């Protein structure tokens, strides 16, 4: 059903200017992702995972083809419309957390809500809820430099989730974490995916992440090599 599709990608090509020539990072991607999926882009370094995620996140533009995210055609958005799409509907989780170091945990998580003009009492409640989801209610006043990597990534998840976006894009979220922390945050995200029906798309080559995915989209040299759906949810729980 068309309406259930959060992302529709048709014949996507992305080329980067390199020196005098061009480098084709994505070459003819066709992909449909439905609401509530827990999917991952898997592939070796340089296969185009981040590039694809950036375009879906309206941080970059397609060179050719169409990418429709939540009914908006990325290629036709101006910067304000793209910013609005990100602000209202998208959450990002980065490999290096990208928290604002001088702001407290609370303030970091509150940030997306400030952009959306929520009232102070609403913000208070929503931030505390989000910190509850990731199990960090005791760290509201801490600042990122005082937290462990795993805690930082949980703050980043809370920040991405606090506004209950339709879509969360996570680029190598576990790359800087040890196994225990990786499983912890993956379980957190899996739980949020099920409870809030938030769509998650990962870019990863981490086996731990891959084991949680409900759909595995293998990228190779800028094209989709394999697209597998797992019909056995929660198959792997270490």
């Amino acid at each position, binding site marked *: 059903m068309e309406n259930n599709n959060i992302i529709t990608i048709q014949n996507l090509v992305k080329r980067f200017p390199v020196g005098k020539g061009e480098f084709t990072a994505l070459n003819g991607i066709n992909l449909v992702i439905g609401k509530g999926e827990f999917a991952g882009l898997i592939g070796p370094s340089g296969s185009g995972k*981040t590039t694809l995620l*950036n375009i879906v*996140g309206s*941080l*970059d533009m397609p060179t050719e083809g169409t990418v429709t995210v939540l009914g908006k055609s990325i290629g036709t958005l101006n*910067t*304000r419309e793209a*910013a*609005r799409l*990100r*602000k*209202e509907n998208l959450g*990002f989780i*980065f490999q*290096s957390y*990208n928290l*604002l*170091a*001088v*702001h407290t945990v609370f*303030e970091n998580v509150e*940030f*997306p809500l*400030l*952009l959306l003009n929520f009232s102070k009492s609403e913000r208070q409640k929503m931030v505390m809820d989000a910190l509850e989801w990731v199990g960090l209610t005791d760290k509201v006043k801490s600042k990122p430099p005082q937290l462990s990597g795993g805690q930082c990534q949980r703050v980043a998840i809370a*920040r991405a989730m606090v506004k209950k976006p339709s879509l969360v894009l996570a680029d190598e979220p576990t790359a800087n974490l040890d196994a225990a922390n990786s499983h912890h945050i993956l379980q957190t995200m899996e739980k949020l995916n099920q409870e809030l029906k938030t769509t998650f798309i990962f870019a990863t080559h981490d086996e731990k992440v891959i084991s949680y995915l409900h759909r595995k989209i293998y990228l190779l040299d800028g094209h989709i090599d394999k697209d597998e759906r797992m019909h056995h949810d929660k198959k792997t729980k270490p």
Partner: protein
Amino acid sequence: MKLAIKLAYRNLIGAGLRTWLNVVVLSFSFVVIIWLKGVMSGWDYQAKSDMTKWDIGGGQYWHQAYDPFDPLTLTDSHDSIPKEALSAIRKGDMEPILIVQASIYPQGRMQTIMVKGINPQQTILKLPTKKLDTITEAIPAIIGSMMAKNSKLTIGDMVTLRWRDMHGTFDATDIVITDIFSSNVPAAEISQIYIPLDRLQQMMLLPEAATILTFRNTETDHPQINGWVLKTKKELTQQVDDIIKAKSVGQSILYFVLLLLAMLAIFDTQVLSIFRRQKEIGTYIALGYTRQQVVGLFTIEGSMHAVFAALVSAAYGMPFLAWQAKVGWTMPLDTSEFGMAIAQTLYPVYSLGLVVSTILIVLFTTAIVSYLPSRKIAKMNPTEALRGKLQ
């Protein structure tokens, strides 16, 4: 805007020492500029009020031929006191002054001077003319301290005065210094000797004659008098404004250098920030800011240095400036050589306009200096900013 201010505030406080260094440099410019401008307007105020008190009163009528810059005109620039002035003179609201060129011979050396005949009972000028009422064998005279210093005269000294009367005949008499006053007004002191008006009129064989008429009140109407030119207080103090304006140009260079240093510090901070905080910039964009909004955020952040600086300046500057206004600033050099009315100690005067305009200028300059490097953000590629790879 409110959010940007909040963020900028957090970021600046978070940046710690770097912020405070900039703020201190900037606040130093604030205080020095306000102080210097205060000294200048204090000087302007003091010069004008001293001139009013000691030399020009509330304004003057000049005999039409009188030109203070051309002593040769003095032989012709006097006339009988006009009828229109008589009632004011009787009331003490106007004083006729006769000005004559003459020579004195202190320690045998000739010195050309102006003799001003003035009513010893006058109350318009602060000159101690009462001391001209003493009866001595010689003519009593008062002089200013600058004059006393130049000609090495002290109270009680007797000196020969030589002049030409209205027929051009030389005559001489002794005068005795009965008082020395200190006015800070060179025009009232340098080469000026004051003696009683009636004595000077007798010496010159010019009864009832005057060169200028000094009046008390600025506000009352001063009619045209035939043969006399009305010089308002504003015209007579114009020279003070001109000189202070000229001196202020020199000071502007100092302001410029001070501001330049502060602005270099801010500029440097901004450039460094934008380079070092690429990931943060990318994050703002990922969270839903447009690049223009991030430019705005960084501009506000830079400009806020000036706001902090204004607050810090208020904290340590206000006591300092207030203290200065009370004790004044004593100039290290000898002010009698300055060529215009200036006291050895100047009391700065700060007007609201002065403070507000200084703050606005600094704020505006800081905003521009913060904006210029931030424009670079508008050209950043968000994905590259997120990777922190831009050079």
